[in-house]
């Protein structure tokens, strides 16, 4: 009797699971009500080239796809907005899940010889620090970002060296499964390019499905096949559309003199063979 009086009713054995369930449901509801957050901004490096062309912002939830580009700002060291730096397109570039927004730095200011470039110069100045400020964006449920997100970065000199496969270092995988395939690049590459423009193909010409990771500031590409490697020859196919964050691709610079492209046609494929040994 005494025990019954001291124990709250909701701790009784009969009710405990029901109450716990209700608490979990309420907690889940509460969680849904909190706003979306920015998970990551690519390039992840905090030092970026003066002629940076594109950035990607990844969100935790599907976001509204209109009216956002006015809310993404590039600020200089004094905290002033660098106007016209981010290309305010009519159609915003989102992935199908509406969780990744592509930002393009106004190409008219990035390219040499255009009036915007000659009159305003590039938006980014070497040696200065900037911050990308993302605030006020809303999820599809009209929930605003939980907090403003800032990415600070220092600007280094322009990157006008197209990516070159000859400078890449390939570490072949080991059959014992201790290591997947690792490709190392001397400079960062575009994360979407790395996901899309590198493919592993086996000796019979079939694509090898697997998991891709892009660590070390987009300077490495790791590939782990879904099925274990077999001994023998594989190929890494590289499409020459593979680009760096400044828009230079394997076929040449983003802003290139007439006739200077490596291949006549864009989108050629390069094939790098490698052996999987014991």
């Amino acid at each position: 009797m005494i025990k019954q009086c001291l124990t709250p009713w909701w701790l009784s054995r009969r009710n405990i699971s029901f109450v716990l369930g209700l608490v979990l449901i309420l907690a889940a509801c509460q969680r849904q009500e909190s706003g979306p957050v920015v998970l990551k901004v690519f390039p992840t490096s905090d030092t970026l080239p003066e002629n940076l062309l594109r950035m990607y912002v990844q969100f935790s939830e599907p976001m509204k796809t209109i009216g956002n580009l006015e809310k993404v700002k590039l600020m200089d060291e004094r905290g002033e907005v660098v106007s016209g730096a981010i290309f305010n397109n009519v159609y915003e570039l989102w992935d199908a899940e509406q969780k990744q927004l592509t930002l393009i730095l106004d190409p008219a200011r990035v390219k040499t010889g255009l009036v915007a470039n000659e009159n305003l110069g590039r938006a980014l100045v070497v040696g200065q620090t900037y911050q990308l400020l993302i605030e006020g964006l809303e999820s599809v449920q009209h929930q605003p970002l939980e907090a403003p997100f800032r990415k600070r970065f220092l600007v280094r000199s322009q990157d006008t060296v197209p990516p070159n496969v000859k400078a890449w270092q390939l570490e072949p995988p080991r059959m014992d499964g201790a290591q997947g395939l690792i490709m190392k690049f001397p400079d960062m590459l575009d994360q979407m390019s790395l996901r899309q423009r590198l493919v592993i193909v086996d000796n019979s010409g079939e694509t090898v499905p697997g998991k891709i990771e892009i660590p070390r500031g987009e300077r490495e590409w790791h590939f782990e096949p879904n099925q274990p490697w077999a001994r023998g020859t594989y190929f890494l196919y590289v499409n020459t559309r593979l680009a760096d964050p400044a828009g230079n691709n394997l076929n040449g610079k983003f802003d290139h003199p007439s006739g200077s492209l490596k291949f006549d046609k864009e989108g050629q494929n390069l094939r790098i063979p490698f052996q999987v040994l014991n």
Partner: protein
Amino acid sequence: MKKFHWSLVAIAVLAVAIFSSFTLLESTNNSLENAELSGATVLAFGPDHVLFVGDSKSGQIHAIPTKAEELKDPVPYNLTDFDRMLAKELDMDTRDLIINDLKIHPLSQEAYLAIKKGHAPDAPSMIAVVNPMSGDIRFLDVKESGATSISVKNPASAELKFWRDIPASSLTITDIDYYDGNIYVAGLSNSEFASTLRKIAYPFSEKQEAVQSIEIYHAVHTQMETRAPIRTMAIAEVAGTPTLIASYTCTPLVTIPLSDIAEGKDVKGKTIAELGYGNTPIDMITYMSQEMDGSFDQKLLVTNKHRSGSLISMAAVAKAMTEGEGMEGMTVTAPTGTADLEITSSPTSSVLHIDNQNQMMVITLKRNLETGGLELVSELKGVFLRLSEFISEYDFPTYRYDEKQAFTKQFHDMIKPMEGYPELVSEKEEK
């Protein structure tokens, strides 16, 4: 007794939540289903008034036959409360309504609008049709219309069978134009800064061509070339040659002969002007304009997101295209960035979409800067503004036009009834 009470409340709350979610599911199951598309980004009319709908979500282009009665009179649109009208028709909140494009039916002058119902990735799209005579809104029946569709190939998958489309990669269809048996489709990729121009035969077959690349020269002295996607375009005969006039994301205006656009070709576009920086082109239309001296001149109008529109004579476009130095295009980088081309501005900075409505008028979808609402209204070509948006001395009942203003009065008397204010037409007497 107390514990019983609380358990009941909790159960009741859960029951209400479950019941209301069922009701929500039920209410979406209505007769508008036949009008739903997975996406509708861009519209264009083609032969026999077929409506092309670019659906970026599914990567498809649908060709939907339309039925319409001919309207010959220039009947203006004056729907200054349009977004609320449309939201009411769909029983939804205006903040959940997205309007992606606007085109006029060439026969009936009805406005066709690509709309999306809600912000979620899987929210359906529809084509709303507005009649200028009645102001009524209906929704295009897609399922029973006999529509045909084609998938827009990813250039990557065309190059090599195993280049996969990764989920994070998307292509937004940004413009479609029909010309002589083909549609020309421009798109923007979210993962690459490259040209994505396609030529697709209509009626749809297997035939689909993608140019390998389009390089545009953008400064003659250094002969720099660049890869860049087309943002908006128009097709017109320029100096007797069917030509794609394209506006790029980096603002130059470029001409490309249609005959150059073919599978695997590396096309060289010719830059004929820069439209000014800090600027994004939205729509491009051509129309025949009557000049003050009574002569006719074909014009090209490019509307911009952050600036006034750019109005250019097509005769000047032809001159720039044919007389420039070969492929080098612009020979002078003038401070305004317009080279030799004379560009006048049009007051279209609040216009979200524009199309030719009839010989006299354009239709515009514009944002009212005071209310934030969307208006679907007609404007006179060449004028590109509405008198009723401004309060001027002409509006006072006591205002009298003097003799020198005969032309102004004539113009005002025509435009006031067109904008829905016939009572403001002043009496005939003049001072």
